[in-house]
């Protein structure tokens, strides 16, 4: 009987402890971000934590569409960094996030495995029958941008008739996110894929060849970020937003291949002017 009472009391205590507390400990900032921001945010983490002692930055990466779904379902997070505005707008409309701000841009590039089994030398080669092209579903930003680029290439007429149809017919899989795409190309499973310029990190570069997309046909990805309305620490979340937009934050993103939203202003330190004669 005594053991039973003890067991019941322990269980009750445990239940209360687990259910009552919110998921976040004080001094934690949970950031939900698009997969393409993996390296950039990981670089930012030690810098931000050093500037805010006692704060732990928790990073969670998934495709922007999955992030949006998580936030809609009430996942406990403080800031959302998306790879496109299409996944941020529904959250703004539903008042689940505060006003977003664009913090970076990105462009696309074509990657093929290092040994280039399908012999892709230019975007036009993507129409060759049997080429295994992988992308993401249209709701995932990279999937959306890829289809935009394909549309632009088709409209230009430079790559032959029926470019769009033939390329879309070569899609063999829709991976969950852009890192999945890069993974399959580096493994040599896919023959070609569109990914972000920022995804061609040094380890990836060693395993792929890249094919540039003509500037006028490329898509410019706009990356918005916003504080999630249900955040437990609005001040800290705002501090993170400011950090990403700061010189340091923008420099880190530029290092990783992103186009900063706030271009670096030329230094304002006074220069020695020759004395007027």
């Amino acid at each position: 009987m005594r053991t039973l009472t003890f067991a019941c009391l322990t269980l009750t205590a445990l239940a209360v402890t687990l259910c009552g507390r919110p998921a976040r400990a004080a001094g934690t900032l949970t950031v939900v971000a698009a997969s393409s921001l993996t390296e950039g945010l990981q670089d930012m983490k030690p810098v931000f934590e050093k500037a805010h002692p006692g704060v732990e930055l928790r990073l969670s990466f998934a495709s922007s569409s999955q992030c949006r779904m998580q936030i809609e379902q009430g996942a406990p997070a403080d800031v959302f960094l998306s790879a496109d505005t299409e996944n941020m707008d529904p959250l703004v409309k539903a008042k689940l996030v505060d006003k977003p701000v664009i913090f970076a841009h990105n462009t696309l590039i074509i990657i093929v495995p290092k040994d280039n089994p399908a012999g892709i030398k230019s975007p036009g080669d993507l129409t060759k029958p049997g080429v295994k092209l992988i992308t993401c579903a249209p709701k995932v930003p990279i999937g959306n941008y890829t289809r935009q680029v394909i549309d632009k290439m088709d409209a230009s007429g430079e790559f032959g008739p029926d470019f769009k149809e033939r390329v879309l017919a070569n899609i063999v899989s829709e991976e969950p996110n852009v890192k999945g795409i890069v993974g399959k190309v580096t493994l040599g499973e896919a023959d070609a894929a569109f990914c972000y310029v920022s995804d061609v990190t040094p380890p990836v570069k060693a395993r792929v060849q890249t094919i540039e997309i003509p500037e006028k046909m490329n898509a410019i990805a706009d990356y918005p970020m916003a504080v999630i309305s249900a955040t437990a620490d609005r001040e800290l979340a705002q501090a993170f937003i400011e950090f990403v937009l700061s010189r340091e934050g923008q420099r880190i993103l530029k290092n990783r291949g992103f186009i900063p939203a706030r271009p670096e202003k030329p230094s304002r330190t006074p220069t020695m002017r020759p004395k007027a004669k």
Partner: protein
Amino acid sequence: MRRSAFALLLLLSLPALALITLPLVGLCSCMRIGSLGACVCCREASSALTLSLITSGIAAAVITLIGTPFAYWLAYCDFRGKKVVETLVDLPIVLPPAVAGVALLFTLGARGLLGQYLAVAHIRLPFTTAAVVLAQMFVAGPFYFRQARIGFQGVPQPLLLASRTLGASAFRAFRQVILPLASPALIAGLIMAWARAVGEFGATLVFAGSLQGVTRTMPLAIYNSMDADPTHATAVVLSVALVTICFLVIIITRAVLTRAAGLQETSRA
């Protein structure tokens, strides 16, 4: 059992009961009957359903074909390394499906152990429907192998010996004695393997990829539609379909096995 003891046990069992029933209740409560009809016919759901049924059907058929002699061998033969083989048979059951997918990729992928030779013959498996079938066979096969072996082992030896002394050839003994007596277990194993094949997700996603009509089976379609479809209609409809299938599987398997147990009793009498 005393009423108070029963009540106490019931109280302590509530968390476990809640764990197994609440998610199902939640799923069914999200379903709107109106959208159900619309969605079953919609392209994503019907294509996923058809693909799942076809691939799992082929996988189950091949598993039966290759699994029956294998199970028979394990049931009736003793050999060095049998324990190793038995462990290998059990492995895919406990292996995380994603690991299974990675293993298949590194074996049969473009640069895989065998895949590189297949590639020379212009056979590239990833991203094909065949890859879906292979992934399903790998994870679901052991369910049949194990159950079939138990079925074969359960055939009473006296009956088998009697048939041989009466002049039946080994093949006739198999066909007319072993098979009928083991068939309930074989059927139960087949149903479980088929259900596992239908529910296969991780290995399929990693090895075969996800494309509507080619590799996007029901579980993959559910995963895809969770963030693609704001109403989640496809996800809910397919989930309910899968839950229904699983329920039927359990009911049928239990009925078959109970009948088998009954038959065994009468055959011993």
